[in-house]
């Protein structure tokens, strides 16, 4: 193969809808910057956070988080056969985080001051931690994505340089990060020394390198992700606006567990859907084994979620007739549906069952996070918060922008590996047929 594989691009009805949504969203964003947040949202002094924090940030970051779990699986836990899935996951994560940062700029009242976060450190603030983690993790994702770009440009020398420099950048970044978070020289030196020790071991050949990705990059991704995925939950520990079904000191753990649980589900979901949209064959031989981890992850989450209610003695809250209670039942029902599907091997082996289970898992996470950020909020003095339609359209527009960017990226970058040999995939023929007859127009 002379060129790494990319996916062609042409205007389909789906792309057209995305374009319209993106334009509508951008228009409303312009309106918001002209007339203030009150002009497009139903936020108030009692409900200063709403739909955007829930969807764009809590849900968005979890759904884009698949990259770190997969990268860990492949490069730390030796699951090399899943390598074909990592690049799409890293690309999704990178685009997801860029989008998240963009969405955050729309939500912030004074986004032009964001650079203060770099120099004005409040290391007891969970928000400060999330901001730094996201910033550094986006940088790590950028470094992880670079090889795809360099391959496309066929810059061999730059690729070599990247191999040597990326680990050093990671050590530097995590050292600064640790200092900002802990304000403790001891911890900073400790973390720097640990990372430097591993790198020395690898440079001297005592410990094997990874052929594709510097291990330190993977480690940094996992460390930063573990921190901010759970800190999104920590954010809400300080507020007393949440009802008892949603507020728990376990929020950081729940947020971390659900992020890990949704990672394989999201990879499966994207794998199947993007295969359909791009007329590729889904990587079923890889996606099915990934699904085998889900019963355990789902069960673990469910145990903590329900066990916590029992432990705090608020189970009776689940019997009340309020929207927040129904929302809780919806979340639990979705987890149970996903659990039932993934626990039956027959269903998982087929693409459709796999897709259904993955969808239920993703919806369960969305229900929990919107529960914490939107539905579970209860400020008696201020009535209820219901998102305004422009809030929803702006979020939809931002997601559409992201999907367009993803589509563009796979058109120009070698993200997907060459298709598997025929016969290794479960149900290949239709997809192969589509792929052969689609004759995509190449725009690049």
């Amino acid at each position, binding site marked *: 193969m002379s060129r790494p594989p990319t996916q062609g691009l042409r205007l389909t009805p789906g792309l057209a809808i995305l374009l319209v949504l993106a334009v509508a969203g951008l228009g409303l964003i312009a309106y918001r910057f002209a007339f*203030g947040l009150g002009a497009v949202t139903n936020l108030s002094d009692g409900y200063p956070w709403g739909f955007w924090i829930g969807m764009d940030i809590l849900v968005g970051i979890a759904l884009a988080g698949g990259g770190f779990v997969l990268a860990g699986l492949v490069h*730390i*836990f030796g699951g090399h056969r899943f390598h074909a899935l990592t690049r799409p996951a890293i690309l999704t994560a990178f685009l997801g985080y860029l989008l998240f940062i963009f969405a955050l700029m729309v939500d912030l009242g004074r986004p032009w001051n964001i650079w203060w976060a770099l120099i004005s450190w409040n290391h007891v603030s969970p*928000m400060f931690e999330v901001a730094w983690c996201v910033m550094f993790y986006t940088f790590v994702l950028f470094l992880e994505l670079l090889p795809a770009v360099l391959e496309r440009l066929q810059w061999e020398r730059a690729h070599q340089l990247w191999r040597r420099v990326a680990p050093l950048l990671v050590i530097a970044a995590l050292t600064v990060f640790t200092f900002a978070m802990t304000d403790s020289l001891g911890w900073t030196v400790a973390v720097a*020394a*640990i990372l430097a020790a591993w790198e020395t071991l690898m440079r001297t050949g005592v410990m*094997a390198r990874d052929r594709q990705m510097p291990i330190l990059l993977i*480690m940094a991704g996992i460390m930063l992700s573990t*921190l901010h995925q759970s800190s999104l939950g920590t954010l809400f520990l*300080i507020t007393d606006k949440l009802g008892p079904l949603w507020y728990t000191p376990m929020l950081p753990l729940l947020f971390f567990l659900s992020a890990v649980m949704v990672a394989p589900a999201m990879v499966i979901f994207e794998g199947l859907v993007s295969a359909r949209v791009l007329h590729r064959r889904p990587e079923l031989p890889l996606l099915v084994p990934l699904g085998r981890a889900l019963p355990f992850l789902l069960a673990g989450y469910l145990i903590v979620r329900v066990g916590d209610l029992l432990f705090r003695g608020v189970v009776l809250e689940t019997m009340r007739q309020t929207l927040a209670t129904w929302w809780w039942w919806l979340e639990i029902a979705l987890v149970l549906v996903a659990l039932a599907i993934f626990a039956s091997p027959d269903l998982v082996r087929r693409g459709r069952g796999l897709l259904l289970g993955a969808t239920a898992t993703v919806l369960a996470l969305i229900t929990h996070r919107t529960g914490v950020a939107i539905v579970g909020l209860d400020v008696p003095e201020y009535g209820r918060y219901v998102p305004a339609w422009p809030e929803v359209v702006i979020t939809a527009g931002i997601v559409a922008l992201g999907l367009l960017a993803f589509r563009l990226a796979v058109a120009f970058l070698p993200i997907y590996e060459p298709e598997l040999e025929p016969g290794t995939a479960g149900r290949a023929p239709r997809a192969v047929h589509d792929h052969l007859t689609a004759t995509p127009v190449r725009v690049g």
Partner: protein
Amino acid sequence: MSALSRRRFLERGGRAAVGLAGAGASAAVALAEDAVADTGADRLVEQAAAQWAMLFDSTLCVGCRACELACNTDNELGRTPDEIFEGRPAEDARALAPSVFTYVTFHQVEADPSTAAFGKVQCMHCIEPACVSSCPVLALHKTAEGPVVWDGTRCLGCRYCMMACPFLVPRFDWDSRNPRITKCDMCFDLQGQGKPPACVAACPSKALRAGTRADLLAEAHRRIETRPRRYVHHVYGEHEAGGTNFLHLAARPFDELGYRRNLPMRSYREYTKPAMATIPYVLGGLGVALGALRWIINRRADVAAGGHEESQP
């Protein structure tokens, strides 16, 4: 493995071991440091004793709202007296707005409809404020003198302070392109010049007093002791949310006067503290564990494959 390569292997391993040992040692130092540097809540309460504070005695308040007018004038909030005195938006913290830093709430006493009782809402200037501990960029901070003030040059407008404040105090300009976080700053500038806060100076019935927290707290307890039937036996702000620099006395239970009830008696920062304290352990622990896992798993796979690992890509 030849003897030579084994020796080299050991040497390098030794060097790495020294590195890891160093890491362990510095982690131990860090732990010791943390134990010393931990400013306990008690220390903060002690510090607050000498800080500026305010006392509102609801039993002395006649509801004239001269304090609101004075605050409006002194802080140039731009409302006319008519706007201030006409209509009552709400009888609790909801009455606060970007142009309303303080508000006197009005409550009919159920047992005796001909009498009224008043409450006062404004920033409580908490000893360990939820808003300050949540602000990512220190735009809000607790001054050494006691007032909690906002610095607009840093604020991102993330509104986390509004999510965090248990008294529903910080306000945001929802209809502005350049929104500010607004709230009472205990007249930080005026007090810096040795003058009392504008609202205190304006109060005709001495319902408002300014002084150090220790003095005002003692005064509040003295009043309850000397007139036990006049007051509910509770100083609102002595312990609420870990204690505040603004103290309240009243004749009626505070929740009847628009005050938030069921507040915890410890500071809100305590709720995020345990989770935040795990950060260095997560970083250090994962740093060691992930590298070790990867080493072990990779070597096992190599041994199983019977080959020698590739040391160069």
